[in-house]
């Protein structure tokens, strides 16, 4: 879902960058208030794992492949959508600058889609679904599916505004592919949440999920 430089005009890219910077500032404020020092290594290892998982494209049929994005995973494990903004922003900057995956002028829009939208949909999807069905793994999986699909639909609207994709065919294709890729997102997120809860139940603020 990494939008390359040539897909969005630079002026629009700058606007998305400004919006992204606002959320990055809010993520830094979250870290200052909510991120305790003992959780710092967890944030770092999550970032490393998300980078590795993003390199692992799995086939989803239709001549297409996809990988975990990780916004939902970061937000659910660390108990805040801003955790996703924090981690995904840094991972996306590293991917863009060092590996040429995702553009530099489009990094702002990629941070908005995968970090901000992915993180918020993942976190509030998880807390909302978990309040109803109680099972944290199924909730995480369903929330992560939406956290893959909705950023993809946002991207297709942004690319329509950019004049790169036509609106309806873009929405249909992005929606179809990411509904399939979202299954990867859901399964991997649920599995990761399961492993973390079983290894260190204290690390995940499970109460956050039940209370909201």
């Amino acid at each position, binding site marked *: 879902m990494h939008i390359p430089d040539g897909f969005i005009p630079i002026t629009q890219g700058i606007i998305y960058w400004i919006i992204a910077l606002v959320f990055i500032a809010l993520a830094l404020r979250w870290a200052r208030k909510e991120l305790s020092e003992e959780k710092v*290594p*967890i944030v770092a290892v999550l970032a490393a794992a998300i980078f590795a998982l993003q390199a692992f494209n799995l086939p989803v049929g*239709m001549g297409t492949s996809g990988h975990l994005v990780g916004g939902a995973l970061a937000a659910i494990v660390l108990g805040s959508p801003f955790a996703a903004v924090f981690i995904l922003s840094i991972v996306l900057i*590293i991917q863009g600058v060092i590996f040429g995956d995702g553009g530099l002028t489009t990094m702002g829009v990629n941070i908005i889609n995968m970090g901000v939208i992915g993180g918020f949909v993942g976190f509030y999807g998880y807390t909302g679904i978990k309040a109803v069905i109680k099972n944290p793994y199924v909730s995480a999986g369903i929330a992560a599916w939406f956290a893959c699909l909705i950023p993809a639909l946002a991207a297709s609207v942004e690319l329509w505004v950019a004049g790169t994709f036509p609106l309806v065919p873009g929405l249909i294709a992005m929606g179809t592919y990411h509904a399939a890729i979202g299954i990867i997102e859901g399964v991997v997120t649920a599995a990761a949440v399961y492993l973390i809860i079983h290894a260190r139940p204290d690390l995940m603020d499970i109460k956050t999920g039940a209370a909201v």
Partner: protein
Amino acid sequence: MMDIKNFIIAGIVIALIIGVAAVFMASPDPDGLESTALVVQGEKTLTGVTPEEAELVEDVHGGFAYDSPFPDYGMGESLGKTGEIIAVLVGIAICFLIVLGLAKVAARPQQQENK
């Protein structure tokens, strides 16, 4: 309960295994965004396979181009898979260290908890 140090080591080991496995096992098919671009550019059908000769036009609006040090998570044709393994290991290490450093600086100062 797993010791926090072991938890971090286990996480890093899992990341490294996934990263190296990705070099050999990741699908070469275009991702969802690239596939969509190929569909709207008339290079493939929505549900069909991606033709080998399908060519993605990335430079739709032009203007800005950037050459990264490890394009496509590799180090060029000559180094092949070795270059890709180095690239992915470098990426995992950089992600871990940069996020560790930035999170340490950004995190809530310890003394504030005592107030």
